């Protein structure tokens, strides 16, 4: 699961996001540049002798890779980019033609189809093959299979970091010790071997200090949604805001600058009493405040967003933007204890939490962000997210008294985005909310 979105979609699709037409915030321009630079580096990696490590978003070890001068590639992000660029359908078909089941996670198939089609990344450049697959195995069993499949494709080594699950919402000493043991004895030595140098712990700590700074600002951004009107959309907009920190930029000056810039912009929006920017420009009057559980759909991302923004519905908090770390519960990368802190980070990602903890978090969001309703977007691809969501829906309604809505789609398989059907559902849900809010007001 991942959330980084490059905005370079204009070549493959008609422009659907007005902000692509020059109406971008400075922070968005900055993010686009950062992503562009990263893909440039990847394109030059082989000629410059840089080593490339493929890894996953939840439980990523970006600071560690950075400290060893290794370049990360995140196949989940490639898949979502392919979805946004309208290519995922073709890639998935390619993978299914090659014998992959229609039943399984489409991120995997999208990635495999992309490899078969030349492994062209989101900026149109060919992605370098991995020198190593870092299997940060947290929050999703499919990761294991995904990298086994990639290992067959690339014939390159895999390093496993098994992150235990938190069934009871608690990180025990045993869990932490297990992850730390693996980091110290297996992951770091393998990365050092690849990098051809020893890990400089001071450099790792320095990067973690930068991470913590950026994390502080990100939490501020998330929590700005407590204002009324909310100056941000914490789901559709939120995936942009989490992009740098969930991917290749945590632990860099770039990420610190980006979040400072973003925070400044949002401070100004709050001062002006403005709501979030949307694909149609600034949002009109805030009518509904929602909490959303589940990943978004990428193939029709802007259509999906507009179904909400045009109705004055703003998402004040979402679980998807926590898949790469639950910073708002207090976690920060700790430069004093870098390895232990990496372990805690991996253990603490949203999909690594038991259902009762996930439910507790959503309940907290509904209450603290004063949501009028909550919505679950259940994606076919992702058992990690989806199994149990119907029970969560009932329980959350019971606990908060706030009505829930349920829609189904997929991440990157366009066959599972029934636009008319989803639009109908969203609209009836919002109408129901409105009637309820009117009743309460009178």
């Amino acid at each position, binding site marked *: 699961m991942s959330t980084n979105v490059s905005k370079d979609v204009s070549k493959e699709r008609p422009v659907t996001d007005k902000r692509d037409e020059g109406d971008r915030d400075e922070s968005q321009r900055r993010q686009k540049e950062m992503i562009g630079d990263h893909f440039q580096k990847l394109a030059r990696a082989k000629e410059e002798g840089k080593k490339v490590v493929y890894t996953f978003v939840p439980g990523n070890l970006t600071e560690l890779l950075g400290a060893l001068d290794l370049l990360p590639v995140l196949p989940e992000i490639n898949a979502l980019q392919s979805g946004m660029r309208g290519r995922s359908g073709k890639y998935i078909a390619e993978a299914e033609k*090659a*014998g*992959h*089941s229609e*039943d*399984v*996670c489409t991120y*995997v198939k999208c990635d495999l189809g992309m490899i078969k089609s030349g492994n062209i990344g989101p900026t149109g450049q060919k992605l370098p093959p991995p020198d190593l697959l870092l*299997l940060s*195995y947290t929050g*999703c*069993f*499919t990761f*294991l*299979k*995904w990298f*086994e*499949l990639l*290992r*067959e494709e690339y014939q390159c080594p895999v390093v*496993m970091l*098994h992150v*235990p*699950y938190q*069934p009871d919402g608690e990180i025990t000493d*045993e*869990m932490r*010790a*297990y992850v730390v*043991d*693996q980091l110290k*004895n*297996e992951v770091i030595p393998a990365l050092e071997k690849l990098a051809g140098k020893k890990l400089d712990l001071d450099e790792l700590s320095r990067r973690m200090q930068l991470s913590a700074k950026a994390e502080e600002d990100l939490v501020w951004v998330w929590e700005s949604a407590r204002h009324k009107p909310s100056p941000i959309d914490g789901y559709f907009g939120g995936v942009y805001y989490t992009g740098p920190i969930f991917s290749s930029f945590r632990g860099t000056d770039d990420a610190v600058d980006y979040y400072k810039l973003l925070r400044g912009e949002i401070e100004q929006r709050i001062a002006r009493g403005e709501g979030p920017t949307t694909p149609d420009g600034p949002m009109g009057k805030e009518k509904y405040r929602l909490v959303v559980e589940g990943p978004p759909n990428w193939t029709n991302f802007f259509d999906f967003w507009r179904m909400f923004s045009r109705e004055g519905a703003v998402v004040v908090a979402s679980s998807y933007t926590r898949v790469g770390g639950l910073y708002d519960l207090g976690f920060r990368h700790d430069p004093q204890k870098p390895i232990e802190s990496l372990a805690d980070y991996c253990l603490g990602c949203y999909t690594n939490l*038991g*259902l*009762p903890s*996930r*439910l507790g978090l959503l309940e907290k969001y509904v209450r603290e962000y004063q949501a009028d309703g909550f919505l679950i977007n*259940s994606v*076919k691809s992702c*058992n*990690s997210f*989806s*199994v*149990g*969501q*119907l*029970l969560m829906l009932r*329980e959350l309604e019971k606990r908060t008294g706030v009505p829930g809505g349920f829609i*189904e789609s997929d991440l990157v398989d366009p066959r599972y985005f029934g636009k008319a059907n989803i639009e109908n559902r969203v609209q009836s849900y919002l109408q129901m909310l409105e009637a309820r809010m009117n009743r309460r007001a009178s």
Partner: protein
Amino acid sequence: MIESHDPFNAILQKARALVDDRKLEAVKAWKAAHPGALAIGHMPVWSPRALVEGMGALPVSYFGGGDQVDVIKGDAYFQSYICHIPRSTIEQALAGDLDALDGMMFPAICDVIRNLGGMWKMLFPEKLSFYLDLPQNFDPAIGGKFFALELKRLVRELEKRGAPKFDRDRMRAAIADENERRAALVELDELRRKEPHRMRASEAYIAVRAGGMMTAKEHTAMLRALLDAAKSRPARKFDNVRVVLVGSFCEQPPVDLVVTLERSGCDIIDDDLQLGMRMIEGPIDLDAAEDPVDCIALAYLRKGAASASRYIADLVKGRPLVEKVRQSGAEGVVFAAASFCDPALLDQPMLEAALTKEGIPFTTMKFAENTGQFQVIREQAGAFSDSVKLWGAA
């Protein structure tokens, strides 16, 4: 239909009754005979049954409601694109069919079982819901250490629920019992390979699965009696194709599906239907460590069978399957995975590639535990066995 006029069928009939015991009457009877003792269910694939027995409790393997439970409520808890076993599990649990269980273990095999553990916790807070994290690191000093602690956490949970205090000797005795069962299973599997007409896959399946409802000692006695009966049983040889069945390690196909494959000309001489019973390939070495719980942990690390939910580490993908085919003299492979089963279905293309490289023919199909129509499967399996017989390849 199993007839009981010979000893083999009589034993099998009893086993079948246990497999079909949806309301866990046998577990209730065991608890009545052992007042105060716990019965702990476990979802597929593997759980440390010996440890549970060593804590004075009855481990009960649970494989969903199969084709005998009408799922009504359970469907309201799961989207259409999720496999069937969690539906019938919730259906049965809500209906009170699983009330004899004091708790359930959810081993770390996939996100469905994992999240089902969380659902169980929310729906049945009074019962134990134990998520068993299986190690994916196989270094005894790292994954082994973690796993041993995980097993000791289970010991503590059972104690908290009223199990007698941990006792080393009792635990060692339970492991020894488990090893006896394992030895009997090795014999059973050998018989199936050598003389499949004496022990058909569907029969072996019932005999092995029934063991999930009893102690290892009782199961061993049953298996031994069945093996004796099988050897003297009048049995007719078939001109069938020898195949290995792969992909049904969790949600189980209806027994009739296995029978359909047999009737279509396949001798299933090996399968992963009851992988949990055979997960530790060989005895648990009681000399491996002082603490018997550590011995279980080490056995899982060192002797754990290749499966879709186990990290491959430095092994070659598909090699264990190819070796199994070669060593058992199989002529082909039937992939039968539960619909929407991510581990099996993501694994399958890699296994197919390994078989293709070796020129081993295979065919693929999907099922649900409540599949009721077998015509297509019969035709497909028939065509497969014919083609293997005729040309040695599908």
